[in-house]
């Protein structure tokens, strides 16, 4: 099945090449990098490594970049699209785990969960915000998952056609789950490994973005 890897990236020139190469080594050659208005040479580095580059002229956020990438994957005829974080926290070897779960159980979305295995060393603040986001997502979508904020996901062709992300920021993850529930898509989670480095910790959600994400989720839940 044609699998397209989607990597939303913002100022990731340090990591993007190694991530692309590790995906290629796993046999995935259709790789889209959405350069979300980076100030550095993310786009050039990714292009040299062999990825298809789509550039946002200004920074719009990880949700916006993900939607651009998924739309591009759909146009490229993807039967499966996999989104993966550009900061190096996810492992290319786990792509097969989530795509296998997608195919074998005929799921529409498979989320790579950081919390289904005890081996992952996850900072406490991330655990707290993720738990809060899980609860809000439950009220938003009516489904409880262990890692609603994971950027590592696989989408079936059907999911690619139906899901439209409108959130620009990190709250897009919860929006995907809400949309999936609305369209009665099958969602599953599989455990994946995650490696937090000082670099990846500096790139992902922090206290400020976590609070903003939760605030936006609450507004979307109760005011929409």
């Amino acid at each position, binding site marked *: 099945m044609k699998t397209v890897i989607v990597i939303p990236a913002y100022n990731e020139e340090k990591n993007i090449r190694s991530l692309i190469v590790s995906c290629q080594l796993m046999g995935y050659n259709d790789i889209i990098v*959405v350069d979300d208005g980076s100030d550095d040479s993310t786009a050039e580095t990714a292009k040299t490594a062999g990825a*298809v*580059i*789509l*550039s*946002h*002229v*200004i920074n*719009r*956020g990880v949700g*916006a970049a993900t*939607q*651009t990438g998924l*739309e*591009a994957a759909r*146009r*490229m005829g993807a039967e499966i699209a996999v989104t993966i974080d550009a900061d190096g926290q996810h492992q290319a070897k786990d792509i097969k785990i989530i795509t296998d779960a997608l195919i074998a159980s005929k799921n529409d979305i498979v989320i790579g969960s950081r919390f289904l295995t005890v081996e992952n060393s996850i900072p406490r603040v991330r655990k707290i915000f993720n738990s809060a986001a899980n609860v809000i997502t439950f009220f938003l979508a009516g489904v409880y998952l262990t890692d609603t904020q994971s950027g590592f996901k696989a989408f079936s062709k059907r999911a690619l056609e139906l899901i439209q992300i*409108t959130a*620009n920021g990190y709250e897009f993850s919860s929006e995907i789950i809400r949309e999936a529930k609305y369209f009665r898509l099958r969602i599953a989670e599989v455990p994946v490994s995650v490696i937090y480095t000082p670099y990846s910790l500096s790139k992902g959600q922090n206290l400020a973005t976590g609070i903003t994400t939760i605030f*936006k989720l609450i*507004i979307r839940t109760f*005011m*929409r």
Partner: protein
Amino acid sequence: MFSNFSLYQLLVPLFSIILIAKAVSQFMRLKRTLRELLVLCFIWTGISVVAFFPDFSMYWLSTFTGIKSGINAIIFFTLVVLVYGLLQLLIKMEDNERVLTELVRKLALRELDKK
């Protein structure tokens, strides 16, 4: 009959009816959700009732909220309306952000069409 009413007692409900009609029109054109419509109807109907029956409304609000002074009750409900307005503004801002994102996204996807 209307000679006993102050001008604001007539203007506020009239204003509310116009805004509710606008909200219904937006709902019919799928520009508002049912939840937004119901919230707006509730707020503007409430404001109209308070304006039309001030004495009764103040007594009811004071009893209902436990806030003894009618003026305090008004301040309380004004704050509620202001918070609602603020959230509406945030949603409007988000809508504008979304339009901007659509533009950026379309420009990016043009690159794919060229390839």
